[in-house]
């Protein structure tokens, strides 16, 4: 049985969930290890994957077994339909669903809420994202190895963008360079479309690239990531274009704040304490894509987080593996040396 599925089934048992109906692709991939077509952005909830605790079986919305591991046989695949009621019928026909008393879903639309109530009137609805979050948060050695492989790709793609940075290059060109290298390294799916944005003094750093060209002396904030075999690696750096200037001295203030915040990423620390470490801090879990962390969640050994700090006109972000004694920085791509 896939490692992720075993952990999801454990969480289902712990939370008395009979059936898990997943619409979020990363959740489906975690339990199935299937690769389906990547689409940018979130889609409204639809039942893309079903896990039945009684049978331990994963059922998948797919017209083919391409990208589907052999432990999910063809009879556990169900086709898509443009008729939501027909899709709900496919789900209800899965062995173990009709008699489930508690069904967890990781999202919902008003339409699917009605359809579930009509098709499975005796089932109580629960929050499936809570189940999946618990199953996914702490990483196994295998998962950390996957993440390290993704980091190698992300760092090399970031390196290509840094190399391409020179006066006259447009922000959108840098995004293109990053994605081209990412693809050359074997993955065509970004974790997100990167920010490669010229920094304006005392203005928030933009996250949407524009036609603007970098000029000599500009700082350019770069934040980007990849999904390699479904596993995310992301990082952020702010790099000078051309000659370093006095303005780049601002970096030293960023360094001081970063050191303080990074030190808070320890096992036992509430996530809210990390976020309170400085203005401009963001922290979230990283695994098969972005994993949400609430303020009251506590960091534990073998969680992987992306820590980001925007301060003093500098954006920097690194992936950290939480350990018993302190964080291990997984992303080793260099920072520019201070001017």
């Amino acid at each position: 049985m896939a490692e992720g599925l075993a952990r999801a089934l454990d969480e289902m048992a712990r939370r008395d969930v009979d059936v898990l109906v997943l619409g979020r692709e990363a959740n489906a991939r975690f339990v199935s290890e299937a690769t389906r077509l990547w689409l940018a952005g979130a889609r409204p909830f639809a039942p893309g994957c079903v896990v039945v605790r009684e049978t331990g079986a994963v059922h998948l919305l797919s017209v083919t077994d391409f990208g589907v591991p052999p432990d999910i046989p063809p009879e556990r695949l169900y086709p898509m339909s443009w008729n939501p009621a027909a899709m709900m019928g496919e789900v209800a026909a899965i062995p173990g669903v009709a008699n489930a008393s508690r069904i967890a879903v990781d999202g919902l639309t008003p339409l699917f809420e009605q359809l579930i109530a009509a098709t499975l009137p005796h089932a109580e609805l629960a929050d499936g994202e809570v189940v999946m979050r618990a199953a996914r948060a702490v990483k196994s050695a295998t998962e950390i190895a996957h993440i390290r492989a993704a980091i190698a790709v992300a760092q090399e793609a970031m390196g290509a963008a840094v190399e391409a940075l020179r006066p006259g290059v447009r922000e959108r060109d840098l995004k293109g360079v990053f994605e081209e290298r990412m693809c050359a390294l074997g993955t065509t799916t970004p974790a997100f479309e990167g920010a490669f944005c010229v920094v304006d003094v005392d203005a928030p750093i933009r996250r949407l690239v524009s036609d603007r060209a970098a000029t000599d002396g500009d700082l350019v904030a770069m934040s980007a990531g990849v999904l390699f075999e479904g596993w995310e690696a992301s990082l952020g750096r702010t790099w000078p274009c051309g000659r370093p200037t006095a303005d780049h001295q601002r970096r030293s203030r960023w360094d001081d704040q970063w050191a303080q915040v990074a030190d808070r990423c320890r096992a036992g620390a509430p996530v809210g304490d990390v976020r309170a470490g400085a203005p401009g801090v963001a922290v979230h879990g990283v695994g098969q894509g972005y994993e949400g962390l609430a303020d009251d969640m506590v960091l534990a050994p073998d969680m992987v987080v992306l820590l980001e700090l925007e301060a003093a006109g500098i954006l920097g972000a690194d992936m950290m593996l939480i350990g018993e004694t302190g964080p291990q920085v997984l992303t080793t791509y260099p920072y520019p040396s201070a001017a």
Partner: protein
Amino acid sequence: MSGDLDLARMRRERHGKVANALEAQGFAAAVLLGQQNIAYALGARAPAADAARAAHRRMVAIVTADGAPAQLYTSFPDGVPAELGAEHVHPALPVEWPEGARQLLDVLPAGPVALDEYTMPLHAALDGREIADATPILSTCKIVKTSDELECIRRAQFINERAMLDIDGRVVPGVRGTELSGVFLRRIFELGATANTVDPIWQVMPSRIDDGPYSVTGDVVFPTPTTRRPFDAGDVIWVDTGIDYEGYASDFGCTFVVGGPEARHHDQAARWREVVDRCLDVLKPGASAGDLVRAASSDGSRRPWLPHLYLAHGIGTNSAEMPLVGTDLGADFDDALVLAPGMVLVFEPVVWDDGHSGFRAEEIVAVTDDGYERLSARDGGPRG
């Protein structure tokens, strides 16, 4: 890309449509969590991202029936349209968590509310409140495009087609789909794409359906994700790509034959052309989706499209939206769907000769007052 485009006018007209639709159906407001719906109703943008990140960093918008400017909750100030005043722009609402869901409850207008999707904490917070589905309301607004929307689709498609010119000549034995994706993605960003919307597809098609991969429907399997497997001479490659320009999707499909097409590939393309041309012959306001289905199928062979997809689909802020033509929603649905000026159709029939693979391409047209106009180039047959 020289057509007239006024983005502020486009946003104003779309917002007006949504407010009017809410008013007409007796709703006080729509609460929107779907990013394409927010792109439509407000024109606000967030960076394109994988689904999980997009969900956690999502924008939320409240559009009221009185036509007042919408309220937008976002982490991305540089994606906020210029005309939306500071009093209407707020920090993101973390609706993945109970606290954020409660914050949304605090700003929810009184009266009947439509909502497009829930997070589960939001579902819990709204327990006991009567909530209608906003999706049909938005779908009704979106189906007929304004001239600015058509221009956005035209520009998205133009960028997509131009980028594909860089692929011509590279589809040779030994090349990998992943490499082609790299060239394509770099080029679309250089050319001004706002985002990429789908992992570019370069699917090596089998000669026969039974050669695999396994098909749940028994029909041709398409699309499947791109792999690192190098192409061989003679491989038939079905391409499908889509980008975003100012919130509007393109959709480009074509067929390559590695090493160059032969007579049978041209013959398949000619039959594909006949299917599309038969549809275009009947395409005008007042024609139904059923008329298109009958025109496409009139040579008596199998229905020339993939049964789990469609003969044609609309396109706009969603890459596939109404009007949907030839889906499993059935003949009655198709016959009831009457085409009107401003509707957009992406035709994507398939010609398949089991044993000799097949041909697939896509063409986009908009319905006009007396027929149609093209938003894409005319497909030129098999490439390679």
